[in-house]
C-alpha cells in the first residue's frame, strides 16, 4: 500500500516536472523563470531539512484539524439523525456554507483569530468538515431496518445502539470518506498558511513566491506530496485493520 501510494505520487510529480522542463527548453526560458535540474537539485539539498520541518508542522495541524472535523461531523450527524427536519436543515446549511470558497472566508478568520495556530486549525477543519458531515449525516440517518427491527420491536433500541449499528454497517463508506477528506485537510492547512499564517509549508511557499524561486516551490511540493501520501497510507492502514478486526471471528 505504502509503496503504491508513494510511487504513484513520484510518477505524477516527475511527469509534472518533466513538463515544466520541456516548456523551459522548448521555449528557451531562462533559469530565472524555470530553474535547471541542477539548480533544483542544489535548492533541494539546501532547503530539504528546513522544508521537511515545515511540512511536518503543516501535517500536524492538518491531522489535528482532520480529527476535529471528524469529531464535529460525528456529533452533528448524530444530532441530525434525530428528526427528518433537523437532518434536512443541517444538510441544507452544510451545502450553503461549503459553497463559499474557503479563500473568501479565510480573511475573516485571520482578522478575528490572528495568524497563529487557531486560524490554521480552523480553516483545515472547515475545508474537510462539510464533505465529512454530508456523508456522516447520510450514514447515520439511514436506518438499517433488517437489523434495527428486532431492537425496536422488543423495546431495546437506544441512540447509542442505533449509531453503533449504522456505523458498523457503513464502516467501509466511513473509512473511504475519512481517507478522502485527509487530503482536503492538508490542502486547507496549506491554503491557510499561504494566505496569512507565519509557519508551515504554505508560509514557506508564500516566501518562495515573493522571491520568485520556483526551485524552492518544487522542493516544497515534493515534500508535501510525500507527507500527504504517508498520512493517507496510515489512515488506509488503520481503516483496513479496523475492518479486518470487525469482520474476523
Amino acid at each position, binding site marked *: 500500500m505504502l509503496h503504491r501510494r508513494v510511487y504513484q505520487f513520484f510518477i505524477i510529480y516527475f511527469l509534472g516536472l518533466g513538463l515544466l522542463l520541456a516548456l523551459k527548453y522548448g521555449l528557451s526560458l531562462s533559469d530565472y523563470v524555470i530553474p535547471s535540474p541542477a539548480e533544483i537539485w542544489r535548492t533541494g539539498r539546501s532547503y530539504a531539512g528546513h522544508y521537511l520541518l515545515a511540512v511536518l508542522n503543516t501535517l500536524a495541524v492538518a491531522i489535528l484539524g482532520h480529527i476535529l472535523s471528524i469529531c464535529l461531523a460525528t456529533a452533528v450527524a448524530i444530532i441530525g439523525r434525530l428528526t427528518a427536519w433537523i437532518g434536512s436543515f443541517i444538510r441544507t446549511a452544510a451545502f450553503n456554507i461549503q459553497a463559499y470558497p474557503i479563500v473568501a472566508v479565510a480573511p475573516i478568520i485571520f482578522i478575528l483569530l490572528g495568524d497563529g495556530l487557531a486560524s490554521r486549525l480552523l480553516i483545515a477543519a472547515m475545508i474537510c468538515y462539510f464533505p465529512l458531515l454530508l456523508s456522516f449525516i447520510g450514514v447515520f440517518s439511514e436506518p438499517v431496518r*433488517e*437489523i434495527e*427491527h*428486532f431492537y425496536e*420491536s*422488543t423495546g431495546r433500541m437506544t441512540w447509542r445502539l442505533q449509531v*453503533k449499528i449504522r456505523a*458498523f454497517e457503513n464502516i467501509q463508506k466511513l473509512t473511504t470518506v475519512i481517507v478522502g477528506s485527509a487530503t482536503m485537510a492538508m490542502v486547507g492547512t496549506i491554503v491557510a498558511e499561504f494566505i496569512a499564517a507565519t509557519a508551515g509549508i504554505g508560509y514557506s511557499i508564500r516566501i518562495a513566491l515573493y522571491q520568485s524561486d520556483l526551485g524552492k516551490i518544487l522542493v516544497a511540493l515534493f515534500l508535501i506530496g510525500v507527507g500527504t501520501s504517508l498520512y493517507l497510507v496510515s489512515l488506509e492502514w488503520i481503516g483496513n485493520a479496523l475492518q479486518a478486526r*470487525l469482520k474476523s*471471528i
Partner: protein
Amino acid sequence: MQLEGRRIFFRYPNASAEVFSDLYFRIPGPGFHALFGPSGVGKTTLAKMLTGAIKGFDGEIAANGVRRVLYTYNLERLPGWSNVRAHFEEIAPSAGRRSMDELIETFGIEASLTSRFHRLSLGQQNRANLIRYLLQDFDLLIMDESLANVDELTREKIILKVKAMFPERCFLYISHNVAEVAKFCSQVLVLRSQSRTPQLASVQGYDHKEGAASDPGRLERAMLEIVHAA
C-alpha cells in the same frame, strides 16, 4: 386471548387500489395459526396492522389479552460485531435463558453459535433469527416466512417443538406452503384478492402435534379446503 378485526378498510397513501375492503378476521386464542394467500394480497400489511406499525386504517382490531405482539421476517440480520451465542446471551431475558439451549438444539444451530451471522447459510440465519424472538416475552408472534430456506424435516421439527414449548402463546405463521399450513396450523386465515367477498376465509387446519397419530384423510380435507378458499 383473542384477536378480532372488524370492517377494516385500508389503502396505502397515493395508491389507487384498496388493500382491504371490509375485512373481517378472528384468531380464536392461543395456538399455531397461519395467514395464507398469494403474493401481494396484503399478508404483511395485515401483520403490520396487528403490530401497530400501520395505523390510520378504518375499522377496528380488538385484542383481548394480547398485550405484546412481535413481528419477525426472513430478511432480518443479527448485528455483525458479535457471534450468534454472544448475541443470544445479550438479548435473552433471564426468564428465556432456560429455553435457549433447548431451542438451539431443536433448531440444529449448535455448530453455528461461535460464528458471526454473515457466515451462516440462509437457513441457519433464519433459524437463529427466530430463536431470539422466541426468547422474548410475547403474546402473539407473527412469523413472516421465518422458516424460508430451511429444509422440510427441520421445519417440521421446529414447528412441532415451538407448539409443544409455547402452548399458551399465539403464533401467526405466514407461508405460501399449503401442505405445511394445513398440517401444522390450527386456524388458517386465507387472505384473498380485494375483488373477492369475503376477502378473508377462515379454514380449520389439521393442527398436528408432536407424538400424535396422523390421519391422512383429515389432512387432505384441510388442504383441499385451503386450496378452494384461496
